[in-house]
């Protein structure tokens, strides 16, 4: 598929170039005048000899050929034959003195367009005009036919490409198929680059019309990765977001485009007379680039339009594939979360329910016993205290009688468990809100020192139970614009962790400030965190301990980090396994960043 360049087409329209085989100069002059007077703007090349004739025929393209029938050296039939050989589509008119009917008919049959007798030259002008007109019609018809064929080809190509693209959601398989489809229909080679998950640009595939060059071409792609500063290819196309068409590349240009001599040789071997690159863009996201090259012919508007259409379809398909993957992943994460949450919630619920049902049972029995049977009343947990053997085959173990003390103990356990459950549910709700983007921060004036001291006093009993001594350094007020409840949540969570994992050893808590930020620090000497867990400690569902005795859903620190991020702060942790951990929270004092 090769087309005259735009420049060549322009030039052809203006002056008609006429080749006139005539040995009589006077006749030639007469004919020339007739034509010019008749309004035909022309440039006439007159030849007498066969050699000149052939030379002209091979050197120039003519709009019309006029020929005398009889010349010394060669005859009309020969002249016509040569014209047919070199420029078969050009109108050919005999302008001759004598031309018998039979000869004339024979010539017409052989492909001459018309003939005019020299003694009736009045016919010349209309004959020439008609011949030119018919040629024009023929050309138009042919152009229309060609345009139709091109159009069909284009639609067929794009339809086939669309089918390939739709055949699978894996663009790593479909795009190479499309590249192969484009060769050699559209180009001698076609390469595709895609932006991968890690944001890097990778060559995906290259198709080449020469099978033997295929592997070599592949290596080439990898050997010369994308050069961000290049004036061609991926770099320029993504920077401008526009396609790039280099119609006719000179060797000098090619040299400028190559990085070293080896690269230049490679490009020459690949075939780069013409080059076309289109970006793959969907929803303003750059997904890659498709490039085409032609070794011998040149690309034009036709190729550009097809390439752009193709790029649109391919980009849309790649985008869909990514969206689908993202959706699948989101569903998977949600399902995993639901599964874990459901399992985790059922755990505290199990002991809660068992305890309640046991108490209920005891209560009912007690009620039953007191209301009218001859059973002995329940004593205070001595061994051997009596239950009726008929009603209760189990021996009564000490401490299980329904005394007020027993009830109080049980209730305390139940309260603790409902609180644990409630906390778990709140954490789940927080995480769900964070995931849905509905996690809101409401700012007000908050004194961090005050919050910390409040939380510590609430934990007083727990400190005693855990046996952790407390050293507090939080005297001067440290005031900032934060969300009070959320800050409380952070402080509570960190202190609670210190107690939980503190192994009964001393805990240090301090609140301080610098010019720009407030600091809250908790140090314990407990079990510490292993280095391999340290990096993931603020992620969801991770627990640095394997023992579930420590309880919880692995969400606490995740939520803490989300809160601190939302407030523009930072949290960090230092820890050594077996020695203890230090958590440091920094919050901005003014504005929303830690620098001021």
């Amino acid at each position, binding site marked *: 598929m090769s087309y005259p360049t735009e420049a060549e087409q322009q030039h052809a329209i203006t002056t008609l170039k006429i080749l006139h085989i005539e040995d009589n100069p006077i006749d030639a002059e007469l004919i020339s005048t007739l034509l010019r007077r008749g309004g035909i703007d022309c440039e006439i090349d007159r030849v007498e000899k066969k050699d000149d004739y052939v030379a002209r025929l091979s050197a120039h393209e003519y709009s019309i050929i006029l020929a005398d029938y009889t010349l010394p050296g060669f005859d009309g039939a020969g002249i016509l034959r040569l014209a047919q050989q070199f420029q078969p589509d050009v109108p050919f008119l005999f302008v001759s003195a004598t031309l018998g009917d039979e000869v004339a008919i024979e010539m017409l049959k052989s492909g001459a367009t018309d003939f005019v007798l020299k003694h009736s030259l009045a016919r010349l002008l209309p004959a020439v005009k008609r011949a030119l007109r018919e040629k024009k019609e023929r050309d138009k018809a042919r152009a229309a036919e060609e345009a139709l064929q091109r159009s069909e080809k284009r639609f067929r190509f794009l339809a086939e490409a669309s089918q390939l693209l739709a055949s699978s959601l894996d663009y790593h398989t479909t795009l190479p198929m499309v590249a192969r489809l484009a060769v050699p229909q559209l180009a001698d080679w076609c390469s595709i680059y895609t932006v991968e998950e890690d944001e890097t640009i990778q060559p995906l595939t290259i198709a080449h019309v020469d099978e033997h060059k295929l592997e070599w071409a592949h290596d080439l792609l990898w050997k010369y990765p994308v050069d961000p500063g290049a004036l061609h290819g991926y770099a320029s196309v993504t920077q401008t977001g526009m396609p790039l068409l280099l119609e006719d590349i000179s060797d000098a240009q090619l040299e400028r485009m190559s990085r070293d001599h080896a690269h230049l040789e490679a490009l020459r071997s690949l075939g780069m007379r013409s080059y076309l690159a289109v970006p793959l863009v969907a929803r303003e996201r750059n997904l890659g680039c498709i490039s085409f090259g032609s070794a011998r012919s040149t690309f034009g508007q036709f190729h550009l339009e097809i390439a752009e259409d193709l790029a649109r379809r391919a980009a849309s398909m790649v985008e869909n594939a990514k969206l689908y993957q993202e959706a699948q992943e989101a569903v998977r994460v949600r399902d995993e979360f639901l599964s874990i949450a*459901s*399992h985790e919630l*059922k*755990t*505290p*619920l*199990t*002991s*809660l*329910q*068992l*305890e309640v*049902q*046991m108490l209920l*049972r005891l209560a009912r029995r007690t009620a039953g016993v007191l209301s009218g049977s001859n059973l002995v009343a329940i004593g205070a947990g001595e061994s*051997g205290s*009596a239950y009726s*053997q008929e009603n209760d*085959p*189990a*021996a*009564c*173990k000490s401490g*299980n009688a329904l005394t007020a003390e027993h009830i109080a103990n049980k209730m305390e*356990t139940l309260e603790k*468990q409902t609180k644990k459950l409630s906390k778990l549910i709140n954490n789940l709700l927080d995480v769900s809100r964070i995931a849905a983007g509905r996690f809101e921060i409401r700012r007000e004036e908050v004194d961090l020192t005050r919050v910390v001291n409040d939380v510590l006093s609430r934990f007083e009993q727990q400190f005693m139970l855990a046996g952790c001594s407390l050293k507090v350094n939080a005297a001067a007020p440290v005031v900032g614009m934060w969300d009070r409840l959320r800050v409380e949540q952070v402080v509570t969570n960190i202190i609670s962790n210190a107690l939980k994992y503190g192994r009964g050893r001393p805990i240090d808590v301090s609140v301080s400030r610098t010019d720009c930020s407030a600091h809250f620090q908790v140090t314990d000497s407990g079990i510490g965190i292993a280095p391999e867990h340290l990096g993931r400690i603020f992620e969801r569902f991770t627990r640095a301990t*394997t*023992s*579930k*005795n420590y*309880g919880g859903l692995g969400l606490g620190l995740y939520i803490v980090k989300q809160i601190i991020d939302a407030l523009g702060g930072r949290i960090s942790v230092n820890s050594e396994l077996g020695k203890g951990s230090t958590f440091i929270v920094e919050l901005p004092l003014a504005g929303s960043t830690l620098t001021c």
Partner: protein
Amino acid sequence: MTVTAKATKTILIIEDDVDIRDALTQILEFEGYDIASASNGKEALDVLRNSARPGLILLDLMMPVMDGWQFRAEQQQDKRLADIPVVIVSADGRIFQKATAIGAAGYLRKPVELEVLLNTVQRHFKAS
């Protein structure tokens, strides 16, 4: 008033959550059983090999160190322990399939109903 001396009726509870373990222990002790407990499969094997043989094992499936599946595999390989009936306790919705797969005598779905617990235990306990 006669007090019937009872042969030791032991149940082994294998469950990593301390609250659930405590609740089950209290309930079953009240019903007259002796309770041995372990917080994972490995501990349970130690207990089994070094104490009185229980008439029933209540087995949680999700535990650290050694989970219910692994424990059951070990139990079935030990001739001495293989025929102690096992009732699995799980929060998983597909507990029926799991019980069948693991060859359990019965199952208890979390959160556990007290009545169901007592009935199941009574039904499957095998005095030795």
